[in-house]
């Protein structure tokens, strides 16, 4: 093991000599990659899972002999899901810890708060699940890992309304409901436009505050409007609340679901179990044969083995593969330009396409994926509350977009009255 590592190290070091003035020193000092990550507070669920993915990548890279012949070291601080801590964290990383590279923490808020600092230092900045964070900054060294594409808000409902439009008979009305927070508002905005384009009438359009406890009254109000479609833009606790309330109130419709954050996580999948059947929802990755990118199965296996000990999502289908892919891109770019120069790295990332565990990625306008790739999936044949079943294909069938499709949309959605 040690021997192998050393041989690899030497091989890579040889290539590094060309670009680095002091290769001897370079071999001893690791490449530091810095970031703040939500390990406590509201975003910690995603943050901790992402951190585990980063760590798996770093271990693998180091086992392969590192980057440019240097070991990789992750330097990270807990941003407590509080953006007020972020500017100081990133200046500390860059000024005091002298990290070589930075990546973002999990989600929009900390990413946005880090931007001015990162921009001032001209660092290349890969970000994880930050919604449209670069729309204002227009920073040319920024790249975002969530496959939203440049027009994120339309993407969460595009597949939904495309499929709805082509149903026979065509649905006439839609109810829109969402959480009153960043994602919910954005998803609903997009859904409104998409519904209009599809010629579907909006009969209910409301948002509810975070921490809503009872969704019965909301669902009943929706039911009273008798919509053909129900599109939901929700966060984890309310996704569960909505689905339960839909079954309790007995709301039936052609299609139910849409942009529900949380259904991608093992906890909610497990809890809702059969209640999920026929619910449609956006997703980024599910273990369907059409998504079998090189390395993803191995990565997930490794992740799932370690998930329990790390106290994170046991399935890890949503954020971790993208966090891992983020690091793969960084790795490919560093190896590609054989340097840690930010300008060169940014140019390289912008110019090239990358093959990762979540497929081929090419970045476009504002550092978003050049082509959006939000999946619409439908839950099928869920039996009981066993979490293992979600590791199989055929349970979370991809119904859109066509190139990843693994099954057809099944309608209507019928509530289970027990």
């Amino acid at each position, binding site marked *: 093991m040690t021997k192998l590592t050393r041989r690899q190290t030497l091989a890579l070091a040889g290539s590094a000599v060309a670009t680095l003035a002091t290769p001897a020193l370079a071999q001893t000092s690791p490449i530091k990659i810095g970031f703040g990550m939500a390990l406590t507070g509201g975003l910690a669920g995603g943050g901790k899972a992402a951190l585990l993915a980063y760590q798996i990548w770093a271990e693998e890279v180091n086992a392969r002999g590192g980057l440019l012949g240097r070991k990789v070291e992750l330097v990270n601080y807990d941003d407590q899901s509080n953006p007020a801590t972020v500017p100081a964290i990133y200046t500390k990383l860059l000024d005091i810890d002298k990290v070589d590279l930075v990546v973002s923490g999990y989600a929009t808020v900390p990413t946005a708060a880090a931007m001015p600092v990162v921009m001032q230092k001209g660092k290349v900045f890969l970000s994880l699940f930050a919604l449209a964070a670069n729309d204002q900054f227009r920073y040319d060294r920024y790249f975002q890992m969530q496959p939203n594409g440049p027009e994120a808000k339309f993407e969460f409902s595009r597949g939904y309304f495309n499929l709805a439009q082509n149903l026979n008979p065509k649905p006439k009305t839609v109810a829109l409901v969402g959480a009153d927070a960043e994602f919910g508002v954005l998803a609903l905005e997009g859904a409104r436009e998409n519904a209009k384009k599809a010629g579907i009438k909006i009969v209910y359009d409301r948002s509810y505050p975070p921490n809503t406890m009872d969704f019965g*009254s909301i669902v009943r109000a929706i039911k009273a409007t008798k919509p053909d479609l129900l599109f939901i833009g929700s966060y984890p606790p309310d996704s569960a609340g909505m689905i339960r309330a839909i079954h309790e*109130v007995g709301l039936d419709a052609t299609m139910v679901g849409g942009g529900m954050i949380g259904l991608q996580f093992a*906890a909610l999948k497990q809890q809702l179990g059969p209640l999920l059947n026929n619910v449609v929802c956006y997703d980024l990755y599910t273990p369907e044969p059409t998504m079998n990118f090189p390395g993803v199965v191995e990565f997930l296996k490794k992740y799932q083995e370690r998930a329990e000990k790390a106290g994170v999502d046991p399935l890890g289908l949503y954020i971790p593969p993208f966090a891992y892919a983020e690091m793969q891109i960084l790795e490919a770019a560093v190896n590609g330009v054989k340097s840690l120069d930010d300008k060169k790295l940014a140019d390289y990332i912008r110019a090239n396409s990358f093959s990762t565990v979540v497929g081929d990625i090419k970045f476009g306008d504002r550092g978003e994926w050049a082509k959006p790739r939000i999946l619409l999936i439908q839950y099928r044949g869920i039996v009981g509350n066993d979490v293992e079943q979600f590791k199989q294909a055929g349970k979370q069938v991809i119904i859109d977009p066509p190139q990843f499709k693994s099954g057809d949309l099944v309608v209507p959605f019928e509530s289970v009255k027990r």
Partner: protein
Amino acid sequence: MTFSLDLFSNAIVSGILLGGFYCAIAVGITIVFGMLDIVNIAHPAFIMTGGFIAYFANTQFGIDPLAACAIAMIPAYYLGRLLYRFYNVAFEKRGEESLQGLAFFFGLLFIIEVALLLIFGVDYRFVEAPYIGPTIEIGFISIPWRLLIPLIVGLGLVLVIIAFLSRTFIGKAILAVSQDPLALRLVGGSPVKVKEVAFGLSIATAILAGALLIIIQPIEPSFGRDFIGRVFCITVLGGMTSLPGTIVASMILGVSESLTSTFLGPSWSPAIAFGLLLITLAVRPVGIFGR
């Protein structure tokens, strides 16, 4: 939103169901805050602890969440007594309970929350029980068991406590200490001992309320903070020391939230509830049931 009898009656029912749960979370605060004058803002953290006890017992041993917390109420009661004894020695005896005591509970809130986070992680946790899922249909009104059980248990809890306070000797002493601690001493009762019992009782109710919470919806450790405002709001609306007042205030809050979210749109419901509180405080500071 168009008005219909169907919607209206369902909104009322929803609100009452929710109100039942609010009863359970507020009863402990009414006891310690209203009656004993102890601003235990860490109360929601104890509720979360109850939720995680239910989660642990349910997932590890398959025990019913309510049964688990009913058992856990006993150690919680003694823990509460211990906590009060500490609070009494550290703050009340020195006459510094108002500000410092508040900060003490603030710190406790953080400690419990982070401890839960370290033990159970940050994911949303939930329980399984036969009453989670099914719904009763009465005409056009639907009542999910998931919310009906908390209503029954919540109301039952308050009624049991009302009975305890009015029927037992120590219960009367708790009522007495809330009215005049010195007078209690003059009849030979020690306010400290009486308050200790009451505090233990309050913590025990928090644990049970936690079971109800996790029956209603999945929880994560920092979730409890959201209740601080609501719980105090109910206690003040209800007139601080009155348990029947707490029931009524819980129902008012539940129903007003439910009606608002059905007819005005859900995003306004917290403002309505707290607006109600602000108006109550400004117009009738003693609450609805205050004397």
